Every structure is written in C-alpha cells, then in structure tokens.
C-alpha cells in the first residue's frame, strides 16, 4: 500500500516539474514572439523605407507625385512643436514635481492635486485634443497653430516629467537636507543649491522620455487641426533683420512627422506606402535614439551612485 503511495507521489512531483518546465518554456516562447514582432516591425519598416531616405526626401515638400515627395514641412513642424512643448512642459513639470515632493504639506489640497495628476496620466490622448480644440483653438482664439500643438503635447507629457522629478528627489538621502538645514539654509537654498543639482540626471531622463513620447503623438494634433497636406513652411524663428528673432511661427499652421506618415499610409498607392515607411524610419530613429539616451543616462547614474 505504502509503495503505491510513494509511486503516486513521485508521479505527482514529476508531473509538477514537467509543468514547471513547460511554463518556463512558454515564458520564453512569449518573450521570443514579442521580440519577433518588434524586430519584424522594425525590419519591415527599414527594408521598405530606408532606400527612399535621401537628401531630396528630407528637403522636399509633399507632392502628389510620390517620386518628388519629401518630409521637409513635417520634420520642421515636429521640431518647432517640440520647441514649444519643451519650453512649457519642462519648467512646469519640474516646478510641480518639486512642489509635491518638497513643499506640499499633508492636506486635502495636496491629495486632490496628486489624484488629478494620476488621473490625467490615464486620460486618452485624443481627449487632450478635444480639450485643446474647444479651449485653446476656439475659446482662447489661438487658432490651429504650432502654439496650440505645443500646449496640448505639453499637457499630455506633463505627468511624465512630474513623476520623474519626484522620483529623482525622493532618491536623495535625507542627510543632505539635514546637513543643509543645519548650516542655516532656507528651503529654496536647499532645493536650488543641493537637491536640484543632485536630481538632475533623473529629471533629465524624464524630460527625454517625455519628449520621445510627444514626438510620436498624432491623435491630439489631428484633432486640433494640424494639416495633413502642406506645401509651405512656417515662418522662420530667425530673421535677417533686428531683432533677429520672430515669433510668427507660433501662429502658423503646420504638420508633423507622424501625421505625414499617417497621410501617406492612408493613400491607396503603394509608392506612398513606401514613403510612409521612410517617414516611419525617421520617426523611429528619433524616438528610439531618445529612449536609448534616457536608458543610458539612467544606467550611468545608477553605476555612479554605487
């Protein structure tokens, strides 16, 4: 009788071990599949699109003739919009993160703010587009411009910078604050002379990640009226006469790289699909490079901290 029990247990254990190994295999398979999809995507894009990337492609306007079409207004538009996004999101995001982490008392006001930020991080990007459309474009009469585009993307990526700032500040040991305090530093001196400099790498990582995300955003910009076919460039920020700086470009209609890609993908002709792939490669290179940079900075600072 006992022998049968022992054999039964052995079988049970063997079966459990087999299942265990099978699951490990399954995990690797899923991992492999995910990697395969990513690689296929990148490869497909590069193989189809890379041959089309030449100087003409980067400096031409879009055209009805696929052979003549380029992404000039698209990447110029992306750059200008990113300028506005960064100019808005970086100071506001760092300021908000700083307030919540170092200044905010424990009160219901602070709770409300924190709940709001968490909530906003989960709102679909197209809703931000609707917000910008109703409020910025029409209510504030700012029009379908680069300025509004920068504003809506800044709002969208604000939570990323806020969270990164907070994490960076949180990782600074309390002893630094105590030492500064004991030396007679007030709050702002402690923050500006000791905390922010120490938090710089973490904040930088957050900024890069935020901008990488903003570059790829399409839906909110379509909603606020970005053009999908554009045959001109926004006015240049740098002028040839004093004061050498112009802000006219903020009020200009525009397009951006992902919208250009969207437009070409939606055309029936295969030639445009290849151009879309090319635009996609440019886009991918930009976002992956930025994400890679952020990962690298994070890796470097973690080694330094040791």
């Amino acid at each position, binding site marked *: 009788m006992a022998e049968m029990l022992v054999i039964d247990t052995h079988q049970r254990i063997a079966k459990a071990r087999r299942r265990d190994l099978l699951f490990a295999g399954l995990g690797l398979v899923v*991992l492999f*599949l995910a990697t395969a999809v990513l690689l296929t*995507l990148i490869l497909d894009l590069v193989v189809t699109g890379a041959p089309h990337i030449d100087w003409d492609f980067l400096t031409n306007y879009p055209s009805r003739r696929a052979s003549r079409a380029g992404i000039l207004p698209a990447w110029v538009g992306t750059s200008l919009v990113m300028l506005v996004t960064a100019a808005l999101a970086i100071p506001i995001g760092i300021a908000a993160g700083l307030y919540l982490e170092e200044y905010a008392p424990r009160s219901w006001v602070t709770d409300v703010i924190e709940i*709001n930020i968490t909530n906003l991080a*989960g709102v679909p990007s197209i809703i931000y587009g609707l917000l910008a459309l109703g409020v910025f474009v029409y209510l504030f009469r700012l029009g379908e411009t680069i300025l509004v585009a920068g504003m809506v993307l800044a709002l969208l990526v604000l939570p990323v910078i806020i969270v990164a700032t907070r994490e960076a500040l949180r990782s600074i040991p309390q002893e630094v604050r105590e030492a500064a305090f004991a030396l007679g530093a007030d709050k702002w001196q402690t923050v500006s002379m000791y905390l922010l400099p120490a938090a710089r790498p973490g904040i930088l990582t957050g900024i890069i990640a935020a901008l990488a995300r903003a570059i*790829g955003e399409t839906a909110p910009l379509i909603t606020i009226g970005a053009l999908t076919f554009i045959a001109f460039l926004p006015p240049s920020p740098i002028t040839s006469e004093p004061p050498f700086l112009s802000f006219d470009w903020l009020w200009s209609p525009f397009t951006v790289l*992902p919208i250009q*890609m969207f437009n070409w993908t939606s055309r029936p002709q295969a030639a445009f699909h290849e151009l879309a792939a090319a635009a996609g490669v440019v886009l991918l290179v930009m976002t992956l490079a930025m994400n890679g940079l952020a990962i690298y900075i994070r890796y470097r600072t973690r080694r330094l901290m040791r």
Partner: protein
Amino acid sequence: MATSLQRASPASSYGIQPSPGFLARRRLVDRLVRSLLFAAASLSVLVTLAIVYVLVSESLLFFRHVGLVEFLTDTQWTPLFANPRYGILPLLAGTVTVSVIALLVAIPAGTVLAIYLSEYADNRLREVVKPLLETLAGVPTVVFGYFALLFVTPLLRRVIPGLAGFNMLSPGLVMGVMILPYIVSLSEDAMRAVPDGLREGACALGYTRLQTATRVVLPAALSGVTAAYLLGMARAVGETMVVAIAAGQNPDFTFNPLEGAATITTYIVQVSLGDVAYGTIAYQSIFAAGLTLFLLTLAFNILGFFLRRRFRQAY
C-alpha cells in the same frame, strides 16, 4: 513673527552672519518660489476641470438636438449624412471589439511574461527584457498602425480568406502587442511586491515555481494584477491611430472582427480631418463621443486606482 535680526553677538568677536538685506531678499524669494511652485502643481486641477467643462458643455449643446435615448440605443451613426442618425452603439461596438481582441492577446501573454520575469528569470535576463519592453512601449502608434495595415492584414488575408482589407482583427492583434509592456510592467510590480516570506513558505512545502506563482503569488498580487488589466483596458479603449489606419472608418454596427468598423476615437479623427465648422452638430458630436470615451476610461482608471491602493496597503 521673527525677532530682530541677530548680528554677531557683541560679546563674541566672531560669527559670519548674512546682512539683513540678504535675509530679507531670501525670505521674499522663498515666498515667491513657493507660490510659483504651487501654481504649477495646481495646474493639473485646472486641466481636469477644463476637460470636464469642454466635454460637458459641448455635449449639452449636442443633446439639445439629439435625445439621450436615441444616442444610447440607435444602431446607426451617420452624423454627416443628409439624414443624420446619432446612435453611439456602432462606435461602442467597434471600440469594444478591437479592445477585446487586444486584451485577449495582451492579458494572457502579459501575465505569463510577468510571472516569468518575477518568478523565473534571473537578473541578467531581466536586464535584457526590460529595455526590450521599453522599446516596444516607445514605438509611436502611427508606426504600429502602418504595421497593422500593410504587414499584418496582408499576412492574415493569406490565412483567413474572408478577411476584409479594413478589419478589426489586425489592429486588435497589433494593439495587443502594443499594450503588452504596460500589463507586464504593472503586473510584475504587483508580484514583486509580494513578500519573499510567502514564497519561502511555499518552497518549504515543496511547491514548484509554477505552483508558487499560481497558488501563492498571483492570488496575493491579485488586486495589483487586476489593476494592471484595467489600466490596459483603458489604454486599449483610448487608442486611436492603430485603429484609424487599419480598421477603416465605416461605422457599421458589428462585432465581427473580420470586418472593418469605426471606434469612438476614429470617428473623432475622421471629423477632425474634414471641414467641420465650429458650432455645428457634427462638431458637437465629437465632444459627445469624447465624453462617452472619457467616462469609460475614467471608470477603468478609478477602479484600477483603488485596486492598486489596496495592494500597496496590504504590505
């Protein structure tokens, strides 16, 4: 109220003190900075209020022309036709179908991967997988849309003869891969938060890693993992470009993944691409659709938030 500023005490011959002017300036700066920082932080509240305001006000205008009942029950959505119909069900059907397909991919794969990373994988493997998932999460959605329409759909059409050029299956699958990183990272966080003591107890009982994972860790991390699913759902429902490119924009009321359809998000895009004047019903309709979407994702996010709070409190 501060006492008068203290200079170095007359009795002592030393003491480097700031000048009274310096201290006064510092106080001013401190107060100014505090107000600026508070303003920046409270911007988030303003944004939420603005979103609610814009969605509700335009929707109210919309509902003056269209009855709420018709909106919620009509099975045709044709606002741009001569004889417009305003039933949101087709859009909801499209949203739900694509999201369900995405979740059918992302939830099982994501959970398996999360368990594998948290219970099986060593640090070296995790160092490789984490950047991989981050890369996946960093690919712009237009690129995924391109991939769905011009690679996945032709591929699937070879296997499934009845597949339309614009269909819901292809974007659904691609979206599944797209939200995979979110589900993996959130579930894995939840699982790693489970104290090792529980794992050690299971190990002492003779459990295999799989048994520990499924019988001990997963149940303990359940609220966190469910929160991950809910947040993934919210992400899927709110996604726009993949569906806009690959699913077509035809608002037929259908749950058939082999056909194309419109979702709430693609409808908004469609209208925005056209010439829709401010103040028209068509303009207001996108806000009504947006309000529906907002409420949907809000519900998921709130549920997810409370579940995550529960799992954090448990430890």
